[in-house]
């Protein structure tokens, strides 16, 4: 069988660039410019040893690589340091919206079971000791009546507070105990569980920071990690289609402040927020003191994503091309720009093109159309320019 045009001529098993170039499935070991890596390493060292919030924002416009950096680089970066990462996309403005997302990431059954496992060594044994230790599901099966569940919740909250030292607040300890025992009747989380003050709520009213601290401690203890890192993406969108009301503005700032407070406390909570320049400026404008705590004033821990250099742009293209060069016969073409011309920098002059998303889009459409038109490699500069100008008209 004859080889396809893309394999035979372009030495690629397929078009490796994703067509949409936004919301791409982020793989590990993505191409990250070394200057970004250096900055992140520098901020980590500074904040890890210093006082204050273990937090910094990543500021970049749409398509500058914020999501890729969070999912494709920072996840590994922190996990290599035994820090558990939790990725939040479009977090809500209310503090407990974060708790909702966080707890759903673990799942009610799994999270409750993990805390119970830590509690059970301190729980009094009742009746005759059995040959096999009681499992979580066995324990839940004993909680058929409300009275049983309430008694157990009180027992657990006592252990959570006095033995595990997850919190010093009775209400917070009780809510966590309730979360465990109510798994018997409802093995999943629902939105109302995170509405403070609602009947059967699992969160403490007006004790957001303490509740969150307890959760962070619980994660650290139950998953045997040294810390937790929240990777918050697109903080500016906040999942609203309409404008924010005054109340929501307040809640947004209050959420940010609470997160910073938790991060500033003794808990090893890291918080990385990806936001657009406008979101960063506006947050700063709304509460300068909060922004300074977040960016550590003179240390200016703000990772600003700027257009890539020509060399970095070429490296990004090579990284994507490598993805379609795993076959033995194609391996010798790895780390080459081919079928793009070696002087591709001639079309990479405009800075708005040298952002990851435009580069990937241009890569996809150039290869797709060149393959369709059976253009001989290297693909001519004029051909790429035409596609680029169509996708990103000059002057805009």
């Amino acid at each position: 069988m004859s080889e396809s045009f893309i394999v035979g001529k372009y030495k690629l098993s397929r078009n490796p660039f994703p067509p949409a170039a936004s919301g791409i499935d982020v793989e590990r070991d993505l191409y990250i410019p070394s200057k970004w890596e250096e900055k992140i390493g520098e901020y980590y060292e500074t904040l890890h040893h210093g006082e204050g919030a273990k937090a910094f924002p990543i500021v970049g416009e749409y398509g500058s690589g914020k999501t890729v950096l969070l999912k494709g680089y920072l996840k590994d970066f922190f996990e290599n340091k035994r820090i558990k990462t939790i990725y939040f996309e479009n977090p809500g403005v209310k503090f407990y919206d974060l708790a909702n997302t966080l707890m759903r990431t673990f799942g009610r059954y799994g999270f409750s079971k993990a805390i119970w496992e830590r509690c059970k060594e301190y729980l009094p044994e009742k009746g005759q000791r059995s040959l096999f230790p009681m499992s979580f599901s066995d324990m839940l099966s004993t909680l058929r009546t409300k009275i049983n569940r309430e008694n157990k919740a009180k027992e657990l909250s006592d252990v959570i507070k006095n033995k595990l030292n997850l919190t010093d607040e009775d209400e917070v300890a009780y809510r966590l105990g309730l979360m465990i025992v109510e798994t018997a009747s409802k093995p999943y989380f629902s939105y109302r569980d995170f509405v403070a003050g609602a009947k059967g709520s699992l969160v403490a009213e007006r004790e957001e920071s303490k509740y969150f601290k307890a959760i962070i401690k619980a994660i650290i203890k139950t998953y045997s990690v040294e810390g937790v890192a929240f990777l918050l993406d697109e903080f500016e969108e906040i999942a609203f289609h309409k404008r924010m009301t005054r109340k929501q503005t307040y809640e947004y700032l209050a959420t940010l402040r609470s997160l910073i407070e938790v991060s500033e406390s003794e808990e090893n909570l890291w918080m990385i927020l990806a936001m657009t320049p406008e979101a960063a400026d506006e947050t700063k404008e709304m509460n300068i003191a909060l922004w300074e705590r977040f960016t550590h004033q003179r240390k200016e821990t703000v990772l600003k994503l700027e257009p890539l250099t020509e060399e970095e742009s070429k490296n990004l293209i090579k990284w994507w091309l490598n993805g379609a060069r795993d076959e033995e016969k194609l391996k010798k073409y790895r780390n080459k720009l081919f079928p793009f011309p070696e002087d591709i920098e001639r079309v990479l002059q405009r800075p708005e093109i040298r952002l990851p998303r435009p580069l990937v889009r241009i890569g996809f459409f150039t290869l797709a159309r060149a393959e369709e038109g059976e253009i001989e490699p290297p693909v001519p500069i004029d051909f790429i320019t035409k596609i680029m100008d169509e996708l990103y008209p000059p002057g805009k």
Partner: protein
Amino acid sequence: MKKRETLWMRYVDFEKIKDMLHLVYENNGKLRAGTLEQLGIEEGILVKKENGIPLTHSPRYHYRKVMEGLDLVEVREKIYHILEDERVLEFIELTSFKKDMSPEAKGILREIIVGNNDCRKYFFDVFMEKDTYTLEDLRKEGEYIIVETKSMREPSADKRMEQKKNNENIRKKKKAGAVILKNPSGKEIELKTQDEIHAIYWGVRLWALELEMTDEIFMSFAEGRIIYPINSDFSDKILINHLLNKIKADNSDSEWVVLHIPTFIKEVALSTRFSVDKIKNFLKDLKIKYPLSTMLIPSSTMFIDIKTPFEKQDSAFRDSYLYKQGIGYISHLRIGRGILKEVKA
């Protein structure tokens, strides 16, 4: 004659005022109020633009009163006459019935408005230190002013939420609040009554804005609306120098300097008093002139609209940003330091 106790200024379309003036001129000394209004309706002047329905009594009345107040016409024994004034006659000569006003005609109209005692007393005086001034003086020497409204004097969202939390939120009866026009030097005009607010804030202020005598910037709700007299001697050299100085003043090690567009517009507007549109066009042209050193950064409207609790003010806030069809609102401009060499070259 009974002295009028309310102000006569109201928001009007000056193209209609000009056409009404032509009706008086064509029928000088022949028309009473009712017949003038009737003629205005028949000629399609005192009608709603969108559907041709005649304006109601109040706006018709205000069109007549604005002509009288600006001394374009006079009423003798209830009959309308053209005022025998050199500028009024020149204005009529420079304009045509149902044709848009020329820039020269608009110039005369601006002078008439700035020369009007009521307009000066309640609006233009606050921009000026001296009492005697012309339109030219206003443009050259006028200071900017800030508009303070009632809602700005209310506690902030943060404070209100705190109060609510502490159950200290005692409901108080809302009062109609004054609008205060404040000059940073301390001079101010307080518009206390609804009549004054309608006449000045929604009247003369908008005349000045639409006739390009003043321009406005609305950066944040807490700061308030800024109004400044427009300097008509525009020079893009001044703007490019301002921009280059901003780049030079940035001491980061990055190749790029990021400017927040509304902040840049505000700084430039207050120091040069060039119109917002001229500054925006300058920024748009930068992308065309220096495509390799400039980059426009779009923003979602979420963080633009957050600047005010009032939805009706959203468009005023969005006006501080560049808008590009197909892209949306541009909040920042990224400029490469290479532009310093490009401009010199």
